C-alpha cells in the first residue's frame, strides 16, 4: 500500500507547513492510513463498515476512535510476529491500561518525529541533562512505567544524565544536583520530568528547604497532565514562575501528548501556546453534535497523526477539553494550529502520568 503522503508529511519540517499545504499533505496521509488500517485491522474495518464511512475528504472527515477503545480492545494492524514493543498507558489501580502495539517502522517514525520537535525547542546539541525523577524509574528494563519510557525517550536529547531525586524517599539529591551544577556551570542545561513530580518533589521541596538554584540558559520540558496540580490550585503560570525563580530554569515548556499517539507531541512555545506539528493536528469538536469548532470555542480535543502504522490510532477522540487559539499566526513564528488544554471531560476516568506515583509505588 502506498504511503507517499505519509512519508512526505513525516519528512517535512515540523513547523513549516501552512494550513493549505498541511490540509493537502496530512489529509492525504490520513486517507492512506485509514485505508491501510481498514485493510489490516479487522475490528477497525468492521467499525468503518458499520459507520458506512467512505474515503475521507480531508483531515476533519477522518473517522475517529475514542481513546478508551484501546483499553477495551487489542487493536493492531500487524501480525503478532511483527510486534516489537507494546506500550501501556499509566493505568492506575483498578483501571485497565491502554495497549499500543508498535512495529519497528512505527517506533522509528515516532523517535524521528519526537527528535524533530524536541530539537526545534532545545537545539541539536545534546545538553547536560537533569532528570527530575529517581534512577529507579528506569531500572527495571522489562517493565517500564509510562514515566520510565517517557524519561528514556527524552534522554536521547541530553548527555551526562543526572537524577535529581533519591530512590529511597524521592527526596532531593542535593549532592548530585550541586555537583551537576558545578560541573556544567556556564553551559545551558536541559531538565526533564513529569509535571506532578517536578512540582511535588522538586520545586516544592526546594521551596520548603529554601534553596534557590541557578541554571542560566536552561530549558525545562515537562509533561504528564495537570489534574493533580489543579487540585492543588497550581496553574501553569504559577508553575513556570516557581520553576524560573526557585530552580533557575530560564525556559519552561509543557507538552501535551498521550501514549495512544506517541511521538506526536504538542509543545508549548514561548508564548504559552501548545503547537501541533506538521505531521499531526488537533481539532476541537462540539460534544453535542461532533461538528468541528472554530478558534475560541471550547470542546473535546481530537488528535490526528501520520505516525501510527501498526495500530489504528491515527485519529483519536481524547477525553480532554480544549480550545484552539489560532492557526499559522503564533507570534513565535511556528506554523500550524495552537491550542490550550482546559482539563478532563467530567465523566472521564482519572488517568495520566501524574497519577502514577501515589497509586503505585514508583
Amino acid at each position, binding site marked *: 500500500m502506498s504511503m507517499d503522503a505519509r512519508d512526505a508529511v513525516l519528512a517535512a519540517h515540523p513547523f513549516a507547513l501552512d494550513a493549505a499545504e498541511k490540509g493537502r499533505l496530512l489529509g492525504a496521509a490520513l486517507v492512506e492510513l485509514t485505508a491501510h488500517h481498514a485493510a489490516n485491522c479487522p475490528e477497525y474495518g468492521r467499525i468503518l463498515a458499520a459507520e458506512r464511512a467512505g474515503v475521507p475528504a480531508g483531515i476533519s472527515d477522518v473517522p475517529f476512535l475514542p481513546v478508551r477503545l484501546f483499553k477495551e480492545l487489542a487493536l493492531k494492524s500487524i501480525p503478532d510476529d511483527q510486534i516489537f514493543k507494546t506500550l501501556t498507558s499509566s493505568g492506575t489501580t483498578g483501571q485497565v491500561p491502554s495497549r499500543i502495539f508498535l512495529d519497528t517502522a512505527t517506533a522509528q517514525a515516532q523517535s524521528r518525529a519526537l527528535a524533530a520537535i524536541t530539537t526545534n525547542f532545545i537545539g541539536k546539541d545534546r545538553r547536560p541533562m537533569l532528570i527530575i525523577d529517581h534512577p529507579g524509574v528506569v531500572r527495571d528494563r522489562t517493565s517500564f512505567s509510562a514515566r520510565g519510557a517517557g524519561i528514556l525517550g527524552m534522554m536521547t536529547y541530553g548527555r551526562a*544524565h543526572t537524577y535529581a531525586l533519591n530512590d529511597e524517599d524521592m527526596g532531593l539529591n542535593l549532592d548530585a544536583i550541586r555537583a551537576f551544577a558545578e560541573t556544567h556551570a556556564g553551559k545551558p542545561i536541559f531538565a526533564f520530568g513529569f509535571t506532578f513530580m517536578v512540582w511535588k518533589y522538586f520545586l516544592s521541596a526546594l521551596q520548603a528547604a529554601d534553596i534557590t538554584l541557578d541554571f542560566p540558559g536552561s530549558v525545562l520540558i515537562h509533561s504528564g497532565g495537570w489534574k493533580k496540580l489543579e487540585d492543588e490550585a497550581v496553574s501553569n503560570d504559577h508553575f513556570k514562575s516557581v520553576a524560573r525563580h526557585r530552580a533557575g530554569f530560564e525556559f519552561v515548556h509543557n507538552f501535551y501528548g498521550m501514549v495512544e499517539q506517541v511521538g506526536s507531541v504538542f509543545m508549548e512555545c514561548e508564548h504559552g501556546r501548545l503547537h501541533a506539528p506538521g505531521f499531526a493536528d488537533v481539532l476541537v469538536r462540539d460534544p453535542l453534535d461532533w461538528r468541528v469548532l472554530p478558534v475560541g470555542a471550547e470542546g473535546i480535543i481530537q488528535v490526528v497523526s501520520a505516525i501510527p502504522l501498526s495500530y489504528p490510532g491515527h485519529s483519536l477522540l481524547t477525553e480532554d477539553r480544549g480550545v484552539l487559539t489560532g492557526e499559522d499566526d503564533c507570534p513565535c513564528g511556528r506554523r500550524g494550529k495552537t491550542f490550550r488544554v482546559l482539563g478532563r471531560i467530567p465523566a472521564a476516568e482519572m488517568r495520566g502520568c501524574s497519577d502514577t506515583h501515589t497509586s503505585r509505588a514508583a
Partner: protein
Amino acid sequence: MKPLADVFAESLMIDAASVTDDLAYQSIKEWDSVAHMVLVTALEDNYEIMLDADDIVAMSSVAKVREILAKYDVTA
C-alpha cells in the same frame, strides 16, 4: 581507542563475536533503549566525539553506527 566491536560488546554486555554489521537496534533484548544510551556514552568516550540527537535516533544497526561515526571522521 577500543575497536567498535568491543565498545558494542561492553555496552550491550554481549559477546564481541556476535557484533556483526547487520546486528540491529531492538533485534536482541540486550540492545534496548537503556543499552542504547549506554552505547552512546561509550562511543562518545571512546572516540572523543559528541553525537547529536538525530544520530542517536538513526543508529539502527552496527553498520549504521559505523556510517554515522564516519561523519565525525572516525574510521571504525
